């Protein structure tokens, strides 16, 4: 009896221990189209399964069709049929993908033995418009480049399609979704017969759809993955670095395949751990001797924790650590395999010997610089890999989101405190323009007002323009343990084409209803931007505004009562120049490479542009002031050349500042104009003398809240600090950071240790620089990545953390001040 009590007690303790231990593993989930999305465990809310018919190219298949048709037709007879399956993959967190197997249940097999290719679709399709997908169209407004679907014909083939369950390995594309180099958008898969147009008689097979009576027969995707560790931090000391991390929870309703036994940590010195630093899945890691490099890279393994328990911390002081070096770490979770003994899978994508040849898993990364003195000990708060150059400023919703839209067809959202995913990456249709002004606006759910017709409740929103000439509005639903996440709510096709590359350089300006006064007559939020369509003599660019309830830019159209959007196009020149009281512009409009500035107080929009680099040509202005409600040109002026930087206003919106490519600053009265013709905005005081160091980048930063106004601008090699007293610009400091500086950022509470206001810039020396606005000193730096150029920084004003991207494909967060 005593022995039995002891056994029960031990069993109870063991169970208690099991409950207390974090669960982390190689997991498996099944994504499956289920009816109309009724499954609570896997809603697949934003999934698509369709079939398209060459014989009826403009017709979309019915949502009630129980089968998806795949058919090889006779050459020249236009009889081919293809199926489309696009899974909602937002349920799977950022992970190392181990396998992804697609299951297609064939109700009726082709009469002959056919081979079906499954290929990734390469153009944006809208989950919200499945009834518009056809042989010709991918959305209601957009057509395929190649009728029948745009795809990459490389993935996998079902050999000899037979009735019943057919499988295909789509691991390669799934690895790319979760951090390919660069990451790929998920636009679904096209299923087609290899023998299209090469058969004597049509060969058709039928795949069970989500409307099939047997739910288990609906298309499904079985994905094995190992989640990355979360909240990785590094604390540098004197000759040591301490790493800490956590393990994310198991995905709801996943199956444990192989338990995680710890992590393997790779380290590199003065450069990030290389993407080639891979360990072969199914093997033991290389020796942990701090000298054996991994897969031919410079990185070594500094720790490997296999065995019992899940470690969450590591003290790196056993390998040679030299103070003032910056050490970069990459942490992979490892899952123990049942055989062979000692073999593991790693939370990486790819293997050392197979596709992809580089790691693309977005594994957790961090860096730290140990030093003998606390002042020299540096580390970012977090690092988030995004896979591509990220020079545009991240957009911050303090405490909720750091939104990064880089040139990889994806919008990514990170928790600004931890760097962990806040949303699943959202696929958009083209790469996002990479200009100085392309910071995307972000609105919280209580701020966003996109009208009642969307069918969605209040959700956070962002807006961005992409290289396919479309403007996307993206819902930022938070990342849930199961279910859906960020998504494209709608898109705008203002140029009526789509696929026009190089259309946008500037970013989207937003006139949020929540921040507007009664003078804003629009019922919902409005997005405003300009095009950069360059030709031999570009004069016909367009400035447009769209009410977000319908994204119409046509005057008088849109949602009921909205009054619609507006657009003005250049190219209709009159003798009075660009000034007009109607919505039609009467001047040339050269390319617009800046983000418009919305004057909320006066309900006007200020736009800067190129003007053929002409001087004093009233028909080619470079500054336009528009009525935000109607688009009417209220005033316009040529300041004497091209302008790439955006206008800005003072905090009380009593002045508008413009900086030109000639390095000259101007101040304007936002409420006054000078009578023409042409009517011009009223200049306040005198312009500055040329700063003499090239164009003013980004925008003039107003760093004070009351006069005299403190203006900070970056030029080619300097950061220049000026004062404007209402009459003259007075140069205070010309700071030389010995590199090419980014646009500056500051904040109301961004002070150094002596309570002096500071600004932060990114630089081409791989560092962030802290500029003292009182003394003009470049007084402190933080090492980001010494081999790269650092982008425009953003500031989380709730934490004074500076978040910035780099050309190395990562986004970093550093606590400010640095000194």
């Amino acid at each position, binding site marked *: 009896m005593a022995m039995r009590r002891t056994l029960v007690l031990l069993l109870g303790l063991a169970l208690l221990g099991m409950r207390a231990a974090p669960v982390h593993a190689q997991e498996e989930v099944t994504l499956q189209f289920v009816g109309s999305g009724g499954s609570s465990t896997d809603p697949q809310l934003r999934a698509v399964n369709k079939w398209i018919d060459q014989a009826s190219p403009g017709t979309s298949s019915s949502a009630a069709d129980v089968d998806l048709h795949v058919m090889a037709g006779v050459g020249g007879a236009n009889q081919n049929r293809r199926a489309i399956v696009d899974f909602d993959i937002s349920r799977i967190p950022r992970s190392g993908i181990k396998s992804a197997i697609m299951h297609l249940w064939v109700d009726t097999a082709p009469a002959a033995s056919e081979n079906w290719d499954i290929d990734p679709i390469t153009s944006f399709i809208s989950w919200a418009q499945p009834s518009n997908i056809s042989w010709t169209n991918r959305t209601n407004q957009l057509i395929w*480049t190649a009728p029948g679907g745009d795809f990459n014909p490389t993935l996998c083939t079902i050999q000899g399609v037979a009735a019943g369950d057919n499988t295909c390995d789509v691991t390669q594309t799934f690895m790319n979704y979760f951090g390919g180099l660069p990451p790929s958008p998920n636009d679904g898969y096209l299923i087609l017969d290899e023998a299209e147009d090469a058969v004597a008689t049509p060969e058709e097979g039928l795949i069970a759809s989500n409307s099939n009576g047997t739910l288990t027969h609906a298309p499904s995707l079985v994905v094995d993955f190992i989640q990355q560790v979360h909240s990785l931090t590094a604390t540098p000391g004197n000759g040591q670095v301490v790493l800490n991390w956590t393990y994310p929870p198991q995905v709801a309703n996943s199956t444990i395949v192989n338990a995680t036994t710890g992590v393997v940590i790779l380290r590199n010195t003065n450069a990030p751990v290389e993407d080639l630093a891979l360990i072969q899945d199914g093997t033991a890691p290389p020796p942990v001797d701090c000298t054996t490099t991994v897969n031919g890279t410079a990185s070594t393994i500094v720790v490997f924790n296999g065995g019992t328990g899940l470690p969450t911390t590591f003290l790196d002081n056993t390998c040679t650590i030299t103070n003032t070096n910056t050490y970069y770490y990459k942490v992979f979770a490892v899952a123990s395999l049942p055989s062979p003994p000692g073999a593991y899978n790693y939370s990486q994508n790819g293997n050392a010997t197979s596709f992809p040849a580089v790691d693309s898993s977005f594994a957790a990364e961090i860096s730290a610089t140990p030093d003998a003195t606390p002042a020299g000990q540096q580390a970012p708060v977090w690092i988030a890999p995004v896979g591509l150059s990220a020079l545009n400023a991240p957009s911050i919703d303090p405490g909720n989101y750091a939104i990064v839209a880089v040139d990889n067809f994806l919008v990514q959202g990170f928790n600004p405190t931890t760097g962990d995913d806040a949303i699943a990456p959202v696929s958009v249709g083209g790469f996002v323009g990479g200009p100085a002004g392309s910071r995307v606006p972000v609105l919280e759910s209580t701020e966003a007002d996109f009208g009642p017709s969307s069918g969605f409740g209040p959700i956070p929103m962002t807006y961005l323009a992409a290289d396919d000439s479309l403007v996307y509005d993206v819902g930022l639903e938070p990342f849930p343990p199961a279910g859906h996440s960020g998504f494209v709510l709608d898109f705008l096709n203002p140029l009526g084409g789509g696929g026009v*590359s*190089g259309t946008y350089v500037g970013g989207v300006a937003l006139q949020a209803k929540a921040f507007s006064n009664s003078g804003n007559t629009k019922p919902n939020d409005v997005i405003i931007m300009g095009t950069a369509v360059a030709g031999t003599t570009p004069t016909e660019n367009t400035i447009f505004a769209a009410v977000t309830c319908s994204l119409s830019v046509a005057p008088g159209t849109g949602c009921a009562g909205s009054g619609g959007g507006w657009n003005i196009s250049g190219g209709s020149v009159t003798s009075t120049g660009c000034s007009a009281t109607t919505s039609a512009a009467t001047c040339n409009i050269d390319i617009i490479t800046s983000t418009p500035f919305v004057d909320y107080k006066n309900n006007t929009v200020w736009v800067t542009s190129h003007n053929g680099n002409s001087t004093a040509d009233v028909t080619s202005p470079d500054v336009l002031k528009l009525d935000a409600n109607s688009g009417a040109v209220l005033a316009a002026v040529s300041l004497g050349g091209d302008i*790439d930087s955006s206008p800005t206003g003072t905090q009380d919106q009593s002045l508008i500042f413009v900086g030109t490519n000639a390095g000259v600053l101007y101040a304007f009265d936002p409420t006054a104009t000078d009578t023409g013709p042409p009517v011009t905005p009223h200049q306040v005081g005198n312009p500055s003398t040329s700063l003499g160091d090239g164009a003013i980048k980004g925008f003039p930063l107003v760093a004070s809240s009351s006069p005299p106004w403190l203006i900070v601008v970056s030029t*080619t090699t300097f950061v220049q600090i000026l004062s404007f007293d209402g009459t003259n610009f007075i140069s205070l400091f010309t700071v030389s950071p010995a590199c090419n500086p980014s646009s500056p950022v500051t904040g109301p509470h961004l002070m150094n240790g002596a309570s002096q206001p500071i600004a932060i810039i990114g630089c081409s020396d791989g560092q962030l620089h802290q500029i003292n606005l009182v003394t003009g000193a470049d007084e402190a730096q933080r090492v980001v990545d010494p081999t790269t150029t650092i982008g425009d920084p953003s500031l989380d004003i709730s934490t004074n953390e500076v978040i910035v991207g780099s050309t190395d494909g990562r986004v970093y967060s550093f606590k400010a001040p640095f000194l």
Partner: protein
Amino acid sequence: MKAVKLQGVLRHLLLPAALGWLLGISGCAGAGVTTNSSGTPGGGTGPTVTPASAMVSFCNAGQTNCQSHSANFSLKTSNIPTLNVKVDWANVAAGTHSQEMRLLMPNGNLFERLQNTFVVPRSGGGSASVNRNIPIVGSYIAQRQLTGGWKVRVSLDGKVITTGDLRLDP
């Protein structure tokens, strides 16, 4: 997998109705039949085929009579609004293809990826052209003076085919 695919295609092509078509286009287009999607040889003992190839050329889209430069093209970032990159394809199999262009910075970092779908018709002789415009003026390339020797790496259906060199000066 390539060999099996080839067999599957040939099975259909050897049907009488298709055989004449095969014989009729045994030149460039025929090469497409006996190659995989990237135009590389598909194996076996079939006729010798020419692999798909591409030529990358650049021009200033802001100039009248935009002149193409295929090698060692250099430009000043301060005065070119838009760089036009053109890829001329040859010996590509008929069908739908995916082109990827990667812009590599002088330090090797990946700056942009541009993807296009294009179709090579059966009667097209295996050639096609893809144009992309890349804004320069006002972009980070100009503002941050990301100058030096850039590379444009071009892939077809996931396989690297060629790389073009481009020099950007301040």
